[in-house]
């Protein structure tokens, strides 16, 4: 057990952030998205006890597909096109992280829990997305409570080609770069990377590094010359870190994943790769990156 009351909080990581616990997609076609995830190396592991929600996993990455019709205000019903609905952050103390965020101007998401389910605190993120806080991920996991394992399935399928979370790409509207940088800095202590420090093959926008150093957020604004390019701001895609991108691309191709290969533009290379959009826009980016050792 960590002696929290004796170890002072790290000023550069006030929440004790420790990576991504899960990414949640919402869609009214969970099976179609499940197929895409399975092609990408994920395996269905468990079902939610009371809702139409599935847990997929490979290596350290958990993905939740949520097809449940929420009654929580300001939440969109799942659309056919899958959308990234939530990022769940691992923190030292979920209650303290939640309280600190609210004190600084985050919007609380009212929870609707059923009996014997966990009350996972959440705040509103970009668009209709949420940010969850979880502090039980070491000896005990949130999935032990809210999910029923799918029988005969290995609950810990290995990651394909060493894939792990690298980060999330967020599309923002024009003039909003400083706003969103401040949002992630104020609430979670993300830091802006210098402009010459970039990863992968899509270096646009601004990259923010999590205080735990375990993942990144990339903010991308519309091209300024395009008038009326503003759309809904959203979490656009996730990026996987891969120690050897081209080996990962080869393995994923064998499983049927298609990559964008434009000789002049985006194409698979040592630094990174981008999958073709599926189901109306679900794409994954690969970034050359070695996993960071777990903290604590």
């Amino acid at each position: 057990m960590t002696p929290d009351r004796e170890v002072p909080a790290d000023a550069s990581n006030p929440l004790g952030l420790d990576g991504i616990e899960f990414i949640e997609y919402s869609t009214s076609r969970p099976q179609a998205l499940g197929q895409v995830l399975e092609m990408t190396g994920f395996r269905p592991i468990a079902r939610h006890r009371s809702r139409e929600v599935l847990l997929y996993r490979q290596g350290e990455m958990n993905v939740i597909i949520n097809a449940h019709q929420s009654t929580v205000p300001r939440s969109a019903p799942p659309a056919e096109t899958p959308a990234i609905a939530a990022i769940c952050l691992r923190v030292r103390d979920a209650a303290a992280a939640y309280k600190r965020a609210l004190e600084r101007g985050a919007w609380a998401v009212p929870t609707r829990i059923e009996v014997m389910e966990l009350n996972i605190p959440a705040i509103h993120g970009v668009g209709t997305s949420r940010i969850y806080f979880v502090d039980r991920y070491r000896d005990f996991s949130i999935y032990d409570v809210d999910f029923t394992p799918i029988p005969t399935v290995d609950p810990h399928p290995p990651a394909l080609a060493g894939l792990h979370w690298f980060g999330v790409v967020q599309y923002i509207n024009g003039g909003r770069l400083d706003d969103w940088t401040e949002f992630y800095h104020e609430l979670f202590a993300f830091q802006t990377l210098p402009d010459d420090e970039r990863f992968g093959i899509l270096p646009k926008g601004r990259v923010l590094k999590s205080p735990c150093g375990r993942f990144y957020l990339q903010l991308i604004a519309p091209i300024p010359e395009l008038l009326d390019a503003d759309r809904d701001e959203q979490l656009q895609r996730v990026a996987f870190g891969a120690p050897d991108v081209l080996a990962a691309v080869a393995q994923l191709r064998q499983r049927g994943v298609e990559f964008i290969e434009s000789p002049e533009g985006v194409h698979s290379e040592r630094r990174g790769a981008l999958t073709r959009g599926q189901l109306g826009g679900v794409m994954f980016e690969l970034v050359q990156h070695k996993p960071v050792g777990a903290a604590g």
Partner: protein
Amino acid sequence: MMHAAANIADMGMDTISMSGTLPMKLAAIRDAGFSQVMLSAKDLAGHAEGIPAAIDAVKSSGLRVTGFQVLRDFEGLSGNLHDYKIDVAKSMLEMCAALGGRVLLVCSSTSTHATGDPDALARDLRKLAMLALPLGIKVAYEGLSWGRHINEFTQAWDVVCRANAPNLGLGLDSFHLFATKTPLEMIDLLDPEKIFLVQLADFMWQEIRSVEERIATARTFRVFPGEGAHSAEVAGLVTQLDQIGYGGDYSFEVFNDDYQQMPLATVAQRAYRAAVWLGEEVLQRSMPLPGQIRLRTQEPAG
């Protein structure tokens, strides 16, 4: 349209200048030749057919929403009072976002319960800016001339700088600027990018002798720019803002009891006359060129 299009796309009317229902006000403002409107929370909350219908009316009017007003007595409170004001602020932000509004106006507190501690004021405004941020709303903080601790634009600017949030800036109201006789040279020290809204009004008296008279005048007897005793000052203010590079909107914040009992079209035409005076005589703008478009502000690199 009744008028030759003058170059006044950045000027608009406030709904508070007229009586009548929201659809009547929107129609009068649009028919007079304006393209934007400053809305009050009361326009929505008091709409006979409900808030969603009010939002539909605004959207279908084709008028752009200059901003949404007004959050009062917000900053400097503690405990339950602070929590209560946060709830009020959230409610206003949600209405503003539903309208597609991009600016929420906040007036400096008059509350005797509010502290004047600059750090506390800055912390509260920063929190408000954070609440507004995911909704794409900027917070314009205005020094009310009878504010308890903050009553001049220079003091409001200090708090804004101290709070240091990208979507928190200043709202300027010419009435309050003139009432406190704050030296207008101080405007040159402001960052034009951090002025989120400028409200203009004139009034009939040369002098305002007491705070009571100031409040009464502000609430019942303002007139449109160019109609009162301070045309030269309004013209000077607008020219000065133009010179420092202010590129945001001007809205006519004209509370006037007489205008409340005049036909809406008459009031809106007076406002339009004020806009043309500002655009053509004060700022000496040319007519808009055919097909002229306003380019999006370029994102600074990095």
